[in-house]
């Protein structure tokens, strides 16, 4: 038997004090298999040991929340006995090392999280962050990640309906690949993971177990250095066809009442799935590892328990239902094996070749995982930059064109044309708008889905950035006419052992908490990815938020495209000239400076509720939230989408033209309406105390902004659509 030395303990990522705790719990030294199990269960990735204290402060409840954080995914009621089930998860480290497989298995993992709960996945989204465009690895990573996401989702037949992509040097050595899945289920057919029923069979289904991905969860909990490429063997390999079979087989079995509990094998594979099921059910489990379907000969208990082979599930069945379940999995040509049973011992007992190879208490291992209150320092908020602190541009048209063709604003069409975004036949708002919208099949309802985060705001002022990320998703859903319901969060940060990084985390959570509370928009699921650093340099703090909303009547949906000539264009919300951290400042003046725009949550709520009601009542012909790049970019995007220009009047503010057009003040929307309806909108806004102003009319094929700028829509289109292809296809 391998002797457990200090070096072996350290290689398993356990600190000395954590190892002391292991010895306390067991009252003896662990064997290597047991040490491996502790290592993954107590990894940052599985235990949330640095983040738990803060995650607990987020609001997670609302009358429509059926299941909040803690299960495989969050569940919200969307009416008529139906539920939306969703979650976002990171696959950052594997995607940097092996972009195609890393991204593909990230999609596979999040799909399993959703269909484990009984939902048929209906939409995939993603949030991607790459290094600066001219970094030598960026093109390779973009190409691999995009084809990996497409390769998996396209084969599964789940539409990938949108997402967001940023490029910034802070991600040069550590990209972010966050994948989100939304599924649909009936509220009375939702499956959970708590094992129950002493003596009930524990069943393994799906792919065979191989040696791939061993210690993936531990890798995800450490920083990168120059030797990270050597970690390639810890990246799993995806097989979307098998996952498609697993999806159909699971849903077919779920239509019966044979399942007691079910859990996918994701990070830390069989270890974390079996412990979580036992822990949630307050029971023990015994497993005979000889019965685990294996891809290769001679696998050790250590390897079997830590493998992260993909496309596998663990279930507890009702007694006597094995044959019925087996027939379904055999029909889909998948492995099905009874590998153990539920016990009343509260222990996880593993045997192989007739010998006991591990015997661990479940509750202490799962619940008594270390929890840290890491020291943190608050990020010093930089001074605001007001409109009048920025010089007036001497060529506003050139500035707008440059921004439309910049890495932040340019069209992502090159990416989403590689994703099948129409399969399943319910996509009624395709990528490129404020949020994607998919119909709830066979009903009048639809779900709106978006992912957002503005990392440069979070870096400058984590609290404001955290609040802004929540508010922007809420605004994007609102701009389609949907009622925002809840969010999933994917918290990507650097090394939490550094107080300034921990301070970013604490600040972002605080901002998110305030925004979720004020907007009645709880967090129902999420994931934390820490140690996103290479050689001691952390990424920009990136709390990626996935928001989901519902449209009761899908034909009330609004889009960003200008629709008709001579519609009235209105700006909702106040423009004060917030230029700090703006795209204008970065792209035109080369400065990444200042405070991010303030987030006024009561104003967000008031303005958003006004816009949503106006859309619902049929007064609005187009709507778009004003975000990166400010008013000028919002107008240009609406013109591009509708292939229709606009005539914008001279503004009446005392701001410079530059600040009026490019400030990134929050809580704003551009909407259009017929001239009769515009009068109604003005009246309604007055009553609701919402700042609103008629700023122009649609028409022609140019964007003319008073005497400030005149550009043809086709010139804007050229700049906007060419940037990414010219980067990638050269």
């Amino acid at each position, binding site marked *: 038997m391998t002797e457990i030395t200090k070096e072996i303990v350290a290689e398993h990522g356990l600190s000395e004090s954590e190892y002391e705790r292991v010895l306390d719990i067991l009252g003896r030294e662990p064997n290597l298999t047991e040490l491996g199990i502790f290592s993954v269960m107590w990894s940052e990735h599985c235990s949330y040991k640095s983040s738990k204290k803060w995650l607990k402060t987020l609001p997670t409840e609302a009358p429509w929340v059926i299941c909040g954080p803690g299960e495989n995914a969050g569940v919200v009621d969307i009416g008529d006995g139906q539920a939306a089930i969703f979650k976002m998860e990171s696959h950052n480290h594997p995607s940097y090392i092996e972009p195609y497989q890393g991204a593909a298995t990230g999609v596979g993992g999040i799909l399993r999280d959703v269909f484990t709960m009984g939902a048929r996945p209906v939409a995939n989204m993603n949030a991607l962050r790459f290094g600066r465009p001219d970094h030598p690895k960026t093109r390779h990573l973009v190409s691999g990640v995009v084809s990996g996401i497409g390769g998996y989702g396209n084969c*599964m037949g789940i539409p990938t309906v949108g997402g967001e992509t940023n490029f910034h040097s802070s991600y040069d050595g550590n990209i972010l690949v966050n994948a989100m899945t939304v599924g649909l289920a009936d509220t009375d057919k939702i499956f959970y993971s708590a094992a129950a029923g002493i003596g009930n069979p524990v069943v393994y289904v799906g792919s065979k177990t191989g040696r791939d991905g061993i210690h993936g969860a531990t890798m995800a909990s450490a920083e990168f250095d120059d030797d990270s490429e050597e970690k390639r063997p810890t990246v799993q390999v995806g097989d979307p066809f*098998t996952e498609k*079979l697993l999806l159909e087989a699971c849903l077919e079995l779920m239509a019966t009442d044979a399942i007691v509990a079910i859990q996918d094998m994701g990070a830390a594979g069989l270890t974390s799935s079996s412990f979580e099921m036992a822990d949630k059910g307050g029971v023990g489990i015994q497993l005979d590892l000889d019965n685990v379907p294996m891809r290769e000969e001679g696998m050790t208990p250590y390897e079997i328990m830590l493998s992260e082979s993909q496309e596998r599930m663990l279930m507890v069945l009702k007694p006597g239902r094995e044959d019925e379940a087996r027939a379904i999995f055999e029909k*889909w040509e998948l492995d099905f094996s009874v590998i153990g049973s539920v016990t009343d011992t509260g222990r996880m007992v593993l045997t192989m070749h007739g010998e006991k190879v591990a015997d661990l208490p479940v509750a202490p291992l799962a619940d008594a995982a270390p929890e840290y209150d890491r020291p943190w320092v608050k990020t010093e908020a930089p001074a605001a930059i007001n409109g009048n602190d920025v010089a007036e541009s001497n060529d506003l048209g050139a500035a707008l064109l440059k921004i439309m063709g910049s890495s932040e604003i340019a069209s992502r069409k090159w990416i989403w044309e*590689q994703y099948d975004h*129409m*399969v399943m*036949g319910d*996509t009624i708002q395709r990528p490129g708008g404020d949020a994607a919208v998919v119909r709830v099949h066979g009903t009048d309802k639809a779900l709106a889905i978006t992912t957002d985060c503005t990392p440069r705001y979070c870096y400058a002022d984590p609290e404001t950035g955290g609040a802004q990320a929540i508010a922007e998703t809420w605004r994007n859903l609102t701009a389609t006419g949907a009622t925002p319901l809840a969010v999933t969060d994917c918290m990507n940060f650097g090394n939490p052992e550094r107080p300034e990084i921990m301070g970013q985390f604490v600040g972002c959570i605080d901002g998110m908490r305030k925004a979720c509370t004020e907007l009645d928009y709880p967090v129902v699921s999420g994931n934390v990815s820490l140690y996103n650093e290479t050689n001691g340099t952390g990424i920009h703090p990136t709390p990626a938020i996935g928001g989901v909303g519902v449209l009761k009547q899908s034909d009330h949906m609004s889009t960003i495209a200008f629709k008709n000539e001579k519609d009235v264009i209105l700006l909702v919300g106040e423009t004060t000239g917030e230029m700090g951290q703006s795209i204008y400042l970065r792209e035109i003046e080369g400065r990444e400076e200042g405070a991010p725009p303030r987030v006024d949550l009561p104003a967000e709520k008031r303005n958003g509720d006004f816009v949503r009601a106006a859309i619902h009542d049929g007064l609005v012909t187009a709507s778009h939230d004003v975000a990166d790049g400010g008013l000028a970019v919002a107008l240009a995007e609406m013109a591009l989408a509708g292939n229709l220009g606009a005539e914008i009047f001279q503004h009446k503010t005392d701001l410079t033209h530059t600040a009026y057009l490019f400030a990134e003040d929050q809580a704003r929307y551009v909407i259009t309406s017929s001239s009769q309806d515009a009068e109604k909108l003005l009246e309604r806004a007055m009553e609701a105390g919402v700042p609103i102003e008629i700023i122009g009319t649609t028409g022609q094929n140019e964007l003319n902004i008073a005497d400030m700028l005149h550009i043809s829509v086709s010139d804007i289109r050229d700049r906007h659509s060419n940037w990414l292809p010219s980067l990638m296809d050269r």
Partner: protein
Amino acid sequence: MKAAVIVFPGSNCDRDMKVAFEQSSGKPAQMVWHADSELPDCDLIGIPGGFSYGDYLRCGAIAGNSPIMKEVVKKAASGTPVLAVCNGFQVATETGMLPGALLRNANQKFICKDVDLKVVSENDRFVGGFETGQVARLPVAHHDGNYFADDETLARLEGEGQIAFKYADADGNVTDETNINGSCNNIAGIYNQAGNILGLMPHPERLISEQLGGTDGKTLIDTLINSLN
């Protein structure tokens, strides 16, 4: 009118095709499992898009040898119309029901977008709802849609009115620029010699209402269903 849709384990446009058939016919379409060795009584067969058996080998290669496809080939030979979309088109070429093969897209990437298609040949059953030469807009979503056939086959397809659609621009010009995937002669869809089988890469079942972004797919499927009533 009874329609059947073939379902391979990796089919993923089977439901979309069923929905489109049912919308046009008002009658339920039957789903037929790949391992079955008999077709139900039907007068239209749909072979849907997807990844039949994973398609890690050559797209449609294994599906082409499945039990149900032997029956489909027989039934098609007796004149039953077949609509083979995307992966279904790939499967149809693998069985020899249609000539040629679908190779990897010239740009090596998956392509999902609406494309303009020139309606090339008359075939009332499938494209009677369009004028010959008209442009129809349908979405594509494929990685392997690059149609290839030898010169002799291409000449026959061109000469005998077997080309259904070509990738074009909005005005119906067929050029290298409009050839999204590198297909020989910009071919997006073809008929068999008897004209009862249409194989095409674009997905008519995806554009069947204004809410989905267009109705040219509905026009095609309505025409097909009406021809059987």
